[in-house]
């Protein structure tokens, strides 16, 4: 609200008529001062692994990721999903490259291909996007423990949360090994969970226990330092 108001008043779409400018100013003033730490920036690190954890991960959030999530949710409405069943997972999936074109689709792909790699660069990760796959877990669907390390075509994965509000189940559990959970997160709408897989990077998604589905978009990246 504040950002849009400021851009409007700054002439982003031309000079505002006085009555509308006055209303926008009053509206913005009524927002009050944001509580410390609540300002949404382009993409911030909300949490990250410590050196004690067996692999590196980051939780990011910002205006760019929320906008990308809104665009992705828009794109996914009405999309055709493929049921994807393996030994350890049951979920719906689709490749975002198969959707589009359109401005919303372009926004999502631009986020995964440019904005997110730029943020990851700040974390010391030089990456290049390989693909973006959306996942939908319905009631009872789950993804068992896996480490992503067997798939050598990518080195970093980024999960963009597309689930508005809270649902029962669907937590992403980060495990130090294949035997048990040590940390649980549910990437909220617009949260980005970045993981750097290795042989010990076991993680799983617990079964969804809600009529509402768990939605996410997962970008897979190659590490430029390892592929060049």
């Amino acid at each position, binding site marked *: *609200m504040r*950002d*849009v*108001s400021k*851009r*409007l008043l700054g002439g*982003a*779409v*031309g000079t*505002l*008529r006085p*009555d*509308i400018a*006055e*209303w*926008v100013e*009053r*509206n*913005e003033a*009524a*927002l*009050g001062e944001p509580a410390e730490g609540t300002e949404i920036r382009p993409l911030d690190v909300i949490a990250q692994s410590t050196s004690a954890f067996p692999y590196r991960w980051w939780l990011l959030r910002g*205006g760019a990721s*929320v*906008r990308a999530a*809104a*665009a992705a*949710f*828009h*794109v996914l*409405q*009405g999309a055709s999903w493929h049921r994807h069943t393996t030994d350890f997972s049951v979920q719906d999936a689709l490749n975002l490259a198969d959707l589009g074109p*359109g*401005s*919303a689709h372009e*926004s999502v792909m631009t986020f995964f291909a440019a904005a997110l790699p730029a943020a990851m660069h700040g974390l010391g990760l030089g990456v290049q996007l390989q693909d973006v796959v959306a996942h*939908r877990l319905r009631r009872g669907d789950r993804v068992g423990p896996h480490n992503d390390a067997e798939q050598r075509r990518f080195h970093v994965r980024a999960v963009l949360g597309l689930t*508005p*509000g809270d649902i029962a189940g669907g937590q992403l559990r980060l495990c130090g090994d294949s035997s048990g959970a040590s940390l649980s997160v549910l990437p909220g*709408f*617009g949260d980005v969970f970045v993981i750097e897989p290795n042989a010990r990077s076991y993680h799983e998604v617990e079964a969804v226990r*809600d*009529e*509402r*589905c768990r*939605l996410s978009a997962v970008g897979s990246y190659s590490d430029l330092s390892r592929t060049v």
Partner: protein
Amino acid sequence: MNFWTDCFALDAEPEAVLALFDHYAGRRRVAARKLSCGLNGSGAAELGGRLDRLLDLAPEVLEAPAAWQWSQELLRTARLGDTAGFHALERQFTRFEVAGAVLSSTGWDGRWPFANEVVVLPGTGHLVHDEAPVVVAGELSPVAARLPLTRGLTVDAVDLCLRGRSAPRFTFVGSDAGEGFAAELAAALQLADLVAPTLSTRLRTTVVPVHAPYGWVEAATDEQTPGVTYCSFGRSSSDLLAALAHEESHAILNAATLSIGLSLPIGDGLMDVPWKPGPRPLPAVIHGLAAFGRASTSDGAPSLSAFQTKGSCDRAISNRSG
């Protein structure tokens, strides 16, 4: 009246907002009068005469959302030269005449052209099932079922014309599910009584229930279906109330632009907003600021601020107007 300051705050006084909606309804009634003139001056004088009689008897029927949809569709068929469509709408007009008899406490005993259909009598809340109705001194027989009504909110999952141009975009809820939705609305209004009492007084719309994809939420307002709010159910009272508050602001802007001549400037170019994908023109940005700004103008209603912030995410991705 200063439209911008008097109508947009969450705690706006009901008088200003309801006066605006009344003005808009009056414009639609006048439009119906013009339509009858047009019909009388063309080859449809019989329908024009029936419309005249209804305007004399119970003009408020022509303010009902269904009446506006009917008249717009009639004009469309006339423009296209769609004779069959025109006659189908002519047949539909009977239900407005019966509604007029009910509201004016007069009588009706004509030929009922609907067989095996559940038919809404616009503006009355009555439903007519299989048997042809008779009206004597405003009393409808057989005694009709009613659409679920909760204070100023009617739930109408029956009347297909209210789906308007939104029909392809939504999956609509079946006609037998309205009562549960009315209970949800009642709970949301009870919450409004506590956190935003003027809002609960102001709300006056026909809610058309829709399914939401993946079990999420949907809510939308369409300027071409005045008096109608599309909304999914199965959600918390706070979330439903936030949706109603959000959609009301779209309805206020639509009524102002289409009724009292408020103009939203086109602006110079487009701009990105966080609540919708893709760049938006200035009128859409203003719609979004008005709807989401409700949280910012809720001094004295912190709990509503809080839940609207929570709910705004859902509406950012589902609302069709902002």
